[in-house]
């Protein structure tokens, strides 16, 4: 029992949970509105899409890669699906929007998988290329106008609420949006995939050491195709959710968000060199970064400071584990140069 407890306290997830609690206490002390249900619901609504995208980022990081094309896939798959639905004059269930966009996302993800698996080039370079390709292609061939006439089902879903509470400040109400449940279901599925399936363990294996994994019988190519297809699918689901929440399909809406989401997952304990990372850690990382990003105004700092705050959190979040690893290496080498 004590060893389990010790392991829990030493885990990365615990550290970040403590950080979240400390930050929350500080913010609440300055402005109690932070802990109101309305504010928490707003925060969850803002972080739903980030959370879904972070699940894909997590999978890629565990496999030892870095994917910067997922916002492009999310936007382009959603935008292409919305264009198709508009052309077909479809005005029914919002589920159809998901069903059309997800295969497009999977197909775009497979293109990443092809280049990564076939040519063994750094995934960052590949996905920089595909990202530019997807955005440029969508904007040039499909046009850059946002689509506001989404299916009726999607519009209805965007206005849905699980629980409605009055606002802490001012009139009006805030609702917990059911899209949070999509994130919850996907998080459980990714967790099951990673910890209870062979291919999930193989993703960890190729991230730990691809050569060793291959010698041990892992078919690295197949795992990579599966992985990037899954990430593409997740990106598309995130993209449609984004379009639903903001009630328009925008070809570049999520552009530029990739680095912050990768950073959140790294903050949650995933190694950028691969082989390590958990769903819980990633979601906590998203939450911590989201709180820092969105609560500056509550504590009275101007919004221009947002990026600085995130940058400081990132440098601490990446520098401290690196420093700890360095010390460990030094200690185990008996002081020899490392």
């Amino acid at each position, binding site marked *: 029992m004590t060893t389990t407890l010790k392991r829990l306290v030493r885990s990365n997830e615990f550290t970040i949970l403590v950080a979240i609690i400390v930050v929350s206490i500080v913010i609440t002390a300055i402005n109690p509105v932070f802990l109101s249900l309305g504010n928490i619901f707003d925060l969850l609504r803002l972080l739903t899409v980030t959370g879904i995208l972070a699940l894909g980022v997590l999978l890629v990081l565990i496999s030892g890669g870095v994917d910067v094309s997922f916002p492009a896939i999310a936007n382009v798959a959603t935008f292409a699906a919305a264009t198709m639905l508009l052309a077909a004059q479809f005005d029914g269930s919002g589920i159809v929007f998901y069903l059309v966009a997800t295969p497009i996302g999977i197909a775009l993800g497979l293109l990443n998988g092809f280049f990564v698996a*076939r*040519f063994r080039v750094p995934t960052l370079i590949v996905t920089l290329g595909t*990202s530019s390709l997807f*955005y*440029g292609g969508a904007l*040039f061939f499909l046009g850059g106008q946002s689509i506001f006439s989404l299916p009726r089902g999607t519009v209805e879903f965007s206005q849905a609420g699980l629980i409605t509470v009055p606002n802490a400040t001012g009139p009006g109400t805030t609702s917990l949006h059911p899209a949070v449940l999509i994130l919850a279901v996907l998080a459980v599925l990714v967790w099951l995939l990673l910890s209870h399936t062979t291919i999930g363990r193989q993703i960890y294996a190729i991230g730990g050491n691809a050569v060793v994994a291959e010698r041990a019988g892992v078919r690295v190519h197949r795992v990579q195709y599966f992985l990037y297809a899954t990430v593409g699918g997740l990106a598309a689901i995130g993209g449609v959710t984004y379009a639903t929440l903001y009630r328009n399909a925008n070809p570049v809406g999520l552009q530029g968000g990739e*680095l912050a989401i990768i950073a959140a997952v790294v903050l949650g304990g995933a190694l950028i060199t691969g082989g390590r990372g958990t769903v819980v850690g990633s979601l906590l990382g998203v939450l911590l970064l989201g709180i820092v990003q969105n609560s500056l105004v509550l504590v009275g700092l101007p919004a221009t400071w947002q*990026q*600085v705050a995130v940058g400081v959190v990132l440098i601490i979040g*990446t520098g401290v584990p690196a420093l700890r690893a360095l010390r460990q290496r030094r200690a185990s080498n008996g002081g020899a140069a490392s």
Partner: protein
Amino acid sequence: MKFLSIIWPADRHIRLLIGVVLGVVVLLSALKQGTFLSSRNFTSMALQVSDLGILTLAMMIAMIIGGIDLSVSAVANLSAITAALAMAPLAGQGTLATVVGIVVALLVGVICGVVNGVLIGYLGVPAILATLATLTLFGGIATVLSGGVSLYGFPDELSAIGSAAVAYVPVPTIILIVAILAVWVLLNRTPLGTTMYLLGANPKASLFSGVRNGRVTLLTHVICSVLASIAGIVVMARTDAANPNYGSSYVLVTILIVVLGGVAVTGGSGRVSGVVLALIALQMLSTGLNMLLVGLGDSNFFRDFAWGALLLIVIASQAISRRTASRRATRKVTA
């Protein structure tokens, strides 16, 4: 022999790049008579290429040591904004203000480079992660300092750097040429350059041959960030504005040019001549696309599409040629 190598370079990759440049020039001269082969077009291309080229050199040296620097454009913007703020109280003393501005910008570059270099070289944070964090931090500081808007109104002496020309060559282009020569000397004629290649090719081997990897990484990133600051000054002089968000899309383009120029994505090899040719080729292609696609939708979007496709084709062909080369080598050994 040496003379021959100028006409027929031994490097297959460089021959290919020269072919691309010549092909584009011939094609566009034929299709767009008068507009492409005009001195005005070449001056404008030379101007456009100057800040991009300097940033590309910065990216190149970061990639040669096996890393990457995602923060180059953030460093350029932060330098420009700090310089703008330093110059503001010196209005009326143009020359002094310009000198102060340039010195401040370069100092900011050194500081940013030290931050990157310490994180990567001494703390062991992977370069992509460290520069991702500093990209956010430097960009954030630039936003705070400028209040999130562009800063305008610099001394005429500074703007003169952006608009003057020596023998029809714009000053920014001359700065680029000097930077190219400096990086060439650094990589080919100094001990630091040699250790940079060694570090990029095999960090363990360089460590065991007595290279202080941390120091080389630190110095590389300082030079890289100073180059980025110079690009920031050039942009400021050329556009008469300092913007916290300028050139965020440059990161992809600089990586594309560096890879296109034959620098191995895993580090350890690559020549300045290849990168310079790739830079010229890309600028020509860009201008060419703009000219050919007039009236066919937004050519900027098509350019993004084309650059992405080009990057993928280049890395695929590099991977294939690497594989055939290693297969040929094995065959030689076994035969």
